């Protein structure tokens, strides 16, 4: 059996086939589907026998076994749906009319195999022999681009070797690794702060009041009071309290400085890491993730994580220390009173627990609303031209108003809940304070407790609710941080889809021979773009590509430059699979002027130089001249130093195109691809550029995508792309004779021209 799916995966299938008189050896290749024909999840098998006479279908769940005569099944095809796919074929009914039947269905998980199955089917009906090492099976032996291990599950390409192993918190802490000393200092500061706040009530209550202010005497349990009943001690202890307060302030400053030092650097490092990771990723990642989200990741998530370590962790430490210290002190002074204090704690905890999720939910709603308002703002401001062109200012203002109202509502919600919780909490605290006054008062009168002990008590009571409030929000702080951290690591761990293979070769330049061999490609599985295309371009060819918009011309250009990898099939340059050519060599030797032009913020010279930063001024000017950009650049007040790029819109579409052509020419590429690069220019300018380019790239391979045939006037090969397939390829003369798509285009444009000439 060919290595597509084999019965080893499910022995019961082999059993079922055998019970229908078909031994394993008789099966040529088989395919396992994950949907049944009626569209539910379930296992079904399709198989074709060695003689290519029959197609068998076996449903594991219903155990139904069907046999089709392969000859009866005509023109099989796949319906690609959004998330599922169906294999269909025509059969003839009794009147000899075509009738479509469903042979099988699968989700996107087995889509590649379905496509391969159809391809194999097509080949066996043509009596082609297929070997186990056929190229079509390569895609099912994919390796992790990072470490080279073959994926254990080919459908879900997860590399367990490269997957992250370290826990998230450990990884996060590693960012603070270089700041050990800062961390220790902060920790010491925290411990001291906690000690001081715990000591202060004791000094003011049990020492200053009981031993200094109170007249000498003995309490009911026999301990002495008023032992330091002198004025000088008042000064000593008040001074001590003052000193402690001052010390606490100093510690706060030290801690703040350490934090600031650490946090700015840690955030910077995280941002650097995220940005580096992002810039390594392939285009497809940027297609899937909106720019806004990525920017948010670089900005917001790093801050969030930092604030957890800078604010969250210290608060956790200090509150824990305080809480433990407090409990010990309170119990040691008077356990009965302590119990009274602790009575409201469960109530408060329950209250926090019940209310806070609501609070957090409203809070995250608030966050979402504010980010969608920002998104709307950015969108409108970027599209200011369109807004004005359709005079939609009032509508946009209304729309903004709606977002702002939404935000206001979310804000109100958060505040309402906050307003609910906190008065209740302070009421409870007030009640316990009164209880202490009551019970404590009785005890003080009964001399079971000193007045100083009671003030200490009241002091501590105020401190105990801080940790409580903090602990109940802390879990949310943690989830929030974990969310941010996982988003950050998600980006950091993303493996670029396109990487150099270990044995990739470097090329100084290319001959310019390009070959597509059975290339299929899609951006997302539901929408196949290129369908099994093959063609060859010889060195020095000047190829013109025509075809309707959306037919896949730019996609072909993207594959030549390996912006994406093919789904199946191979692209060769100079006979070498481009997966085995160093990306650096590809980028260095293939220049593409794409349809979507992007000029970076900077000068015109910077933008031209972008492709080859070491180029001299002279070379830049030559490239600009070839692109017919020199003249208009010289007309600008600041010449080559004119600022362009995001924000400045002073250049016309054609001017921007010419700058990007100059950028491509400066690279002195072996292969030049112009993807509708002159579409925004008048015919004369276009002609001038194309002549200049021809001079520059003699003997180099050029691929020109265009709609106007005039652009293609000196192409020696024309390729017509339609619906993801190369429908025609040959010299312009051959294609004219063939009367196909190219002929249509020619006739149409010629006809229009004649009509214009005739004056109607």
């Amino acid at each position, binding site marked *: 059996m060919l290595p597509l799916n084999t019965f080893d995966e499910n022995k019961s299938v082999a059993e079922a086939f055998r019970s229908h008189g078909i031994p394993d050896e008789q099966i040529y290749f088989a395919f396992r589907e994950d*949907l049944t024909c009626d*569209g*539910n*999840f*379930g296992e079904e098998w399709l198989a074709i026998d060695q003689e290519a006479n029959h197609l068998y279908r076996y449903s594991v769940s219903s155990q139904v076994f069907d046999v089709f005569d392969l000859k009866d099944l005509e*023109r099989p*095809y796949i*319906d*690609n*749906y*959004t*998330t*599922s796919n*169906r294999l*269909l074929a025509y*059969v003839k*009914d009794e009147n000899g*009319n*075509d*009738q*479509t*039947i*469903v042979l099988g*269905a699968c*989700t*996107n*998980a087995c*889509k590649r195999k379905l496509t391969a199955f159809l391809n194999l089917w097509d080949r066996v009906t043509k009596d082609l022999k297929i070997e186990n090492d056929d190229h079509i099976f390569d895609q099912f032996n994919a390796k992790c681009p990072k470490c080279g291990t073959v994926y254990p599950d080919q*459908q*879900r390409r*997860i590399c*367990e070797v490269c*997957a*992250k*192993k370290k826990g998230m918190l450990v990884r996060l802490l590693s960012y603070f690794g270089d700041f050990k000393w800062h961390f220790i200092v902060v920790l010491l500061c925290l411990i001291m702060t906690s000690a001081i706040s715990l000591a202060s009530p004791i000094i003011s209550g049990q020492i200053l009041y009981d031993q200094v202010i109170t007249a000498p005497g003995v309490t009911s349990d026999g301990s002495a009071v008023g032992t330091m009943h002198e004025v000088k001690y008042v000064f000593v202890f008040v001074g001590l309290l003052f000193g402690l307060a001052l010390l606490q302030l100093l510690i706060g400053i030290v801690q703040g400085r350490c934090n600031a030092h650490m946090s700015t650097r840690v955030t910077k490092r995280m941002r650097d890491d995220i940005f580096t990771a992002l810039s390594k990723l392939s285009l497809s990642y940027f297609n*899937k*993730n909106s720019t806004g*989200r990525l920017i948010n990741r670089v900005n917001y998530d790093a801050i969030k994580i930092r604030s957890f370590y800078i604010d969250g962790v210290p608060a956790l430490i200090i509150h824990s220390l305080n809480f433990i210290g407090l409990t010990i002190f309170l119990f040691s002074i008077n356990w009965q009173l302590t119990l009274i204090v602790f009575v409201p704690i469960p109530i408060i905890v329950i209250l926090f627990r019940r209310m806070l999720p609501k609070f957090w939910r409203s809070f995250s709603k608030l966050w979402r609303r504010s980010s969608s308002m920002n998104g709307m703002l950015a969108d409108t401001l970027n599209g200011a031209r369109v807004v004005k062109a359709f005079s939609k200012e009032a509508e946009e203002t209304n729309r903004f108003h709606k977002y702002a109202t939404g935000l206001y509502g979310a804000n109100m919600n958060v505040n309402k809940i906050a307003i609910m919780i906190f008065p209740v909490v302070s009421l409870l605290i007030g009640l316990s304070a009164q209880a202490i006054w009551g019970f404590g008062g009785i005890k003080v009168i009964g001399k079971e407790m000193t007045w100083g002990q009671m003030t200490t008590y009241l002091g501590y009571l105020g401190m105990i609710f801080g940790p409580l409030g903090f602990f109940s929000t802390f879990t949310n702080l943690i*989830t929030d941080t974990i*969310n941010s951290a*996982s*988003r950050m*690591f*998600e980006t950091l*761990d*993303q493996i670029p889809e396109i990487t150099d293979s270990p044995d990739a070769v470097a090329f100084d330049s290319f001959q310019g021979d390009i070959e597509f061999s059975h290339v299929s490609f899609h951006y*997302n*599985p*539901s929408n196949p773009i290129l369908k099994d295309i093959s063609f060859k371009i010889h060195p020095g060819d000047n190829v013109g590509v025509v075809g309707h918009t959306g037919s896949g011309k730019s996609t072909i250009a993207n594959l030549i430059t390996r912006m994406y990898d093919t789904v199946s099939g191979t692209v060769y340059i100079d006979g070498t699979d481009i997966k085995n050519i160093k990306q650096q060599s590809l980028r260095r030797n293939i220049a593409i002027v794409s349809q979507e032009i992007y000029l970076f913020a900077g000068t015109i010279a910077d933008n031209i130089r972008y492709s080859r930063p070491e180029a001299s001024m002279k070379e830049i000017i030559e490239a600009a001249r070839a692109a017919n950009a020199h003249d208009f650049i010289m007309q600008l007040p600041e010449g080559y130093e004119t600022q362009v790029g995001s924000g400045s819109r002073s250049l016309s579409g054609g001017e921007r195109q010419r700058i990007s052509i100059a950028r491509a020419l400066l690279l002195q590429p072996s292969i030049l691809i112009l993807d509708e690069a002159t579409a925004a220019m008048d015919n004369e300018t276009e002609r001038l550029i194309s002549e200049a380019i021809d001079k520059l790239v003699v003997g180099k391979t050029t691929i020109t995508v265009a709609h106007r045939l005039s652009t293609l006037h000196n192409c020696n090969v024309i390729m017509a792309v*339609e*619906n993801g397939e190369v429908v025609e390829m040959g010299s312009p003369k051959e294609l004219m004779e063939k009367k196909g798509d190219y002929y*249509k285009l020619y*006739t*149409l444009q*010629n*006809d229009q021209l004649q009509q214009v000439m005739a004056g109607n």
Partner: protein
Amino acid sequence: MEEVELESLFERRESVRLTQENAVFSKSPGGLISLTLRHPESDKPDEFFERVIPLRGFPITDPEQFISIREPDTKEKGRGAEIGLIYDMKEFDQATQELIRAELDRHYFTPELLKIYSVKEKFGYLYFEAETSAGPTSFVLNNPYSNFRTFDDERIFIYDIDGNCFQISHPEKLDKASYRRIEIYL
């Protein structure tokens, strides 16, 4: 160039509004949809399409309106041309509605998650075991934070690593245990 030839080169069929009056949908022997298109206004003969494909114009917010009826996308036919547009499914009888809806549901295969048995995290990937409206299944998510999509009406779409999509139309109706398993990703 002769005019006639040019005209025929650019022939394209005109899409019409489909109603009970001009469109008769039927189930083909292969279980798919066939269409007989009448031309009441002109004397053109009826057209028969052995197989047509319905597509939704607004699959997320308005699945029952603006259904495009097209020819299949096959090698010989090219991208399926639009035969006509159904403005509202309600304009057709119950049987037709069901026929088309079944095919649409097949096309926009988005099983409803009824129960989530388990969600396991391993090396940053989430492994789901769940009961869906299309039977039990398991699927894997990479990047969970980017692959949950919440709509204004609270509906949740979950996109898995293979490009399949699952939905939860009423998160509040999901049992507590299932909801808790996905809560943190929302």
